[in-house]
Each structure stands twice: as structure tokens, then as C-alpha cells.
């Protein structure tokens, strides 16, 4: 699962970068528009350690943000799974907040939380929390009638059992959603760093953009991609392991 993820990423990345180089060659574009392979390689050699550190910094924030989001989404999703006013309120709130551009909200967060860890964490959590929440609510509000029926008619269906049944039956979906939310958390953190922080790979990308240095961007994208692929692969493995353990427990 892990090596497949990395392999898939490498294919996409190499395809993309190969086509860029192809364009450069075909149109005789300067290194300013599209850097050459040697330039990218040299930039990679020079910047890899620093960018790797930046990506790890970003990644740490993203993982914490994602973990918080998962916990909050599970708690609120379980509470809001019934077709109640609260449940519909959560959905409306989630759709609304999703519609707000982060670039508009970021300066407000910056004023409230400063330009450090908390702002990055908040934006990362915000970007990945609501899709997670909607998925959790969707999963938790959908009865698994074929299993729940017995427990319901015999008076055994307490909320914990209901949640357990729905989580178990949708474990694959939940794993996919959690794995997918890793991308959102990472993207959220990078956006946060880009617009309202002084650390992380998003901040470094902003500087590279100021310097019109596409080589650095390509190197950063590579490290972000490979890190994310690894993380998603690990999450999928964990999900599969969890299901296996649960199913054999």
C-alpha cells in the first residue's frame, strides 16, 4: 500500500515535470519561465535539507490539526447524527464556513492568534475539519438496518452500540475520509503559512514566489508530495490494520 502510494506519486510528479521540461524544450523557454532539469537538480541539492525541515514543520502542524479535526468531527458527528435541529444546524454551518475563503479569514485569525503555531493549526484544522465532519455525520446518520434491527427491537441499541456498528460497517469509508483529510490538513497548513505565518514550507514557497524561483517550488512540491503520499499510505495501513484487528477481536 505504502510503496504503491509513493510509486503513484512519482508517476504523477515525473509526468508533470517531464511535460514541463518538454514544453520548455519545444518552445525554447528560458529558465526563468520553466527551469531546466539541471537547475532543478542543483536547487534540489542545495535546498533539500532546509525544505525537508520546513515540510516536517508543516507536516507536524498538519498532523496535529488533522488529529484535532478527527476528534472534533467524531464527537460532533456522533452528537449531530440524528435528524435533529442540531444535526441540520451543523451541516448548514459546515457548508457556510467551507464557502468562506481562507484568505479572507486569515487576517482576522492573524489579529486574534498572531502569526505563529496557533494560526497555522487553526486554519489547517478548519480546512480539514468540515469535510471530515460532513462525512462523519453522513456515515453516522445512515442506519445499518440489517444489523441494528435486532438490537433495536430487543431494546439493546444504545448510542454507543449504534455508533460502533456504523463505524465498523463504514470503516473503509472512514479510513478513506481520514486519509483524504490528510491532504486537506496539509494544504490548509500550507495556505496558512503562505498568508499568515513565518514558518513552514508554505512560507518558503511564498518567498520562492517572491523570487520567481520555480525550481524551488518544484523541489518543495516534490517533498510535500512524497511526505503526503507516505503519510496517506501509513494512514491506510493503519486503517487496514485497525479493521483487521477489530474484525478478529
Amino acid at each position, binding site marked *: 500500500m505504502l510503496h504503491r502510494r509513493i510509486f503513484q506519486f512519482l508517476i504523477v510528479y515525473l509526468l508533470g515535470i517531464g*511535460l514541463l521540461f518538454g514544453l520548455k524544450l519545444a518552445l525554447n523557454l528560458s529558465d*526563468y519561465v520553466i527551469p531546466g532539469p539541471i537547475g532543478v537538480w542543483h536547487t534540489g541539492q542545495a535546498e533539500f535539507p532546509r525544505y525537508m525541515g520546513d515540510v516536517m514543520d508543516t507536516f507536524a502542524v498538519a498532523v496535529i490539526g488533522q488529529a484535532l479535526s478527527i476528534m472534533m468531527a467524531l464527537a460532533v458527528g456522533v452528537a449531530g447524527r440524528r435528524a435533529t435541529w442540531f444535526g441540520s444546524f451543523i451541516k448548514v454551518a459546515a457548508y457556510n464556513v467551507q464557502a468562506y475563503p481562507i484568505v479572507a479569514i486569515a487576517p482576522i485569525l492573524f489579529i486574534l492568534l498572531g502569526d505563529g503555531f496557533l494560526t497555522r493549526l487553526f486554519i489547517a484544522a478548519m480546512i480539514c475539519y468540515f469535510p471530515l465532519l460532513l462525512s462523519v455525520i453522513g456515515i453516522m446518520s445512515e442506519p445499518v438496518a440489517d444489523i441494528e434491527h435486532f438490537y433495536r427491537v430487543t431494546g439493546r441499541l444504545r448510542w454507543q452500540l449504534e455508533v460502533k456498528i456504523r463505524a465498523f460497517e463504514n470503516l473503509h469509508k472512514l479510513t478513506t475520509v481520514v486519509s483524504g483529510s490528510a491532504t486537506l490538513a496539509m494544504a490548509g497548513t500550507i495556505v496558512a503559512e503562505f498568508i499568515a505565518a513565518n514558518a513552514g514550507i508554505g512560507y518558503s514557497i511564498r518567498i520562492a514566489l517572491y523570487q*520567481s524561483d520555480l525550481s524551488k517550488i518544484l523541489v518543495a512540491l516534490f517533498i510535500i508530495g512524497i511526505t503526503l503520499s507516505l503519510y496517506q499510505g501509513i494512514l491506510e495501513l493503519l486503517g487496514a490494520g485497525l479493521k483487521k484487528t477489530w474484525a478478529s477481536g
Partner: protein
Amino acid sequence: MKPRITFFRLTALVLLLIVGSGLMAAGEVLARERVAYRLKWLINASTAGDVFALSQGFFSREGLEVTVKAGGPERDAIRELELGYAQFGVASADQVIRALAKGAPVVVLAQLFQVNPLQWIYRADDFSLTRIQDLAGRTVGITYGGNDETIMRALLATAGMGENQVRLASVRYDYTPFFQNQVQVWPVYRNTQGIFLSDKLMAGGERVAFFDPSEYGVRFVANSVVTSQKMMRQHPQTVQQFTRALLAGWQTAMEPANETAVILAVGEHDRDTSQAVMHRQLAVTRQMIQPDPDVPVGHIDTAAWQQTEQIMIRQKLIPGPVNVIDRLKPQQTP
């Protein structure tokens, strides 16, 4: 030029579809005498001459149909020249020099700002900055990776100051740290943001002053008009016509008598700035476009360009000399 653009766009479309990205909106196909002019930033007082030249028919009188495109943080006129999305553009000197370092076929036709509007604002009641050394111990805002970082580092180097003598603080477009006095010296575009900030602080009873690097020997060149070498070679007349019209537009726009018309032209695009503020913005802009009446609008300050290149070499922003003066191609002025 046309088949190349078509090929590029088709190939780019395929590429971006494959990698799952969006494709930038395609511009209009270049036709004879129809040219696109990409600005560096959004339309405001800093682009007064550009929009005025368009609205007052300076371009059309030269037989040109010009599309003036607003710039922005993700826009890069030099890239667009090479890709054929624009035939003329505005770029700062550091952009030009970086592009040259990477082999971009760009040439400079005119230098719009004789004084770089990128300066630092501070509260005049708290302290005064009459020399670079006065920055010592202050918290100075810079945009890491931006021009202001380069300029500030050049200033410190000029004064023989180490970076440990000032506290450099990263800034962005949110002014809160300056309002809260966490950052005491804040980088602004003197002719636009500088006016807003002055007004805000003055409304609170505070006086402001500006720290202008050019007064201390650092003349880092700002916005200039650029085109491609290919354009120069293949359409020299169009280049001349464009430059002539543009600089005539700027010259006329900077005449105080035309201020109302200029404000109207800029106001069509910049609806968030009041006319009163725009008057003051134009007054400052005028001093930066033509500080010396004997120096024509658009004059290319070769020495300043050389200094800019030297600063960038010293700060290792480029790997080596690019001989930028070879790419300075002043055109016939009005």
C-alpha cells in the same frame, strides 16, 4: 508568433489536465498592432500614467490597440512576455535581473519610478531616522524574499551594521503589528499605502515619517517597462510607438492640471480609494516619477540599475553578473 502560441496553449492544456491542475485563462491572440500590457500590480496611483495613456487615447493615436491588464501577486510580466500572453509589461529591477540570470530574453524600455516608492514608515513622535544607524535596536519589518528585505540588507551593509543590531520582523499585508507598535518601522509603498497609514495614525493623533533608502545611497530600481528581445527585433516600430505613447501618457498624467482626469481614469478601476486620498497619492507619485523636471519621464538611471545588480550579487540573489546595462534600451521620449 501565432502558431507558437497555439501550440503552447494546446500542450499546456494537455499537461495541466494530466496533472489535474487548472489552466490559466487564455488571452487574446496577438494580431498586428494589438498588444497587451501587463502591469505589476493592481491599478492604483502607481499606474496612473498607464491607465491615463489608455483612457486619453495616447496609444490609439500611435495606431496601437492596447489592452492594459492589471497585475497582482501571482502575475509576472516577464514570464508573460516569453509565453506571448503580453507584449509589454511592468517589472521591478530585481525581477528583470533575476530573469536575466536565468536567460530570459527581456529588455528594459523605460524606468517609470525614478525614486523607489518602497520605503519605511515610522512614528515620528517616538524617534527619528536621520541615518541608517538610527535603525539600531528598532524592530524593522521586512517581507522575507521581497524587495524590502534586499533593500534593508543593503542599507545595513552600507552602514556596516550587522543584522544583530536591528530586530528584523516578518511582515505581510496586515498592519496590526505596526498599529500595535510591535514593529516600529514598517515597509510601505510610500505613494499608496503610505498615505492610508499616515491618515490612520494621524486620526489617532500620531505623526508619521518615512525612511527613504535612496537618501542613504541605496537606489534600488522599482517599476520599469519591459518587452522581449524578440519584440524589439521583429516589431521595433511597435516598441517605439508603445513607449512613446506610454511615456507621453505618464508625462501628461503627472501634470497637476490633469489631476482630475487622472483620478477619474484610475478611479474607474480603483473604487476603494477616495478622490481626496487619490489626490495626495498622486502628489507623492509625481515626485517619484519626475523628481527633477530636467530629467524626462521614463529616464533609465543606469547607475541605479548597476547598483541594483551589485546589491543582488552581494546578497547572492543571483549567481553572478548579468550586465543588466546591456539590456537597458531607452526609446525615443516624447
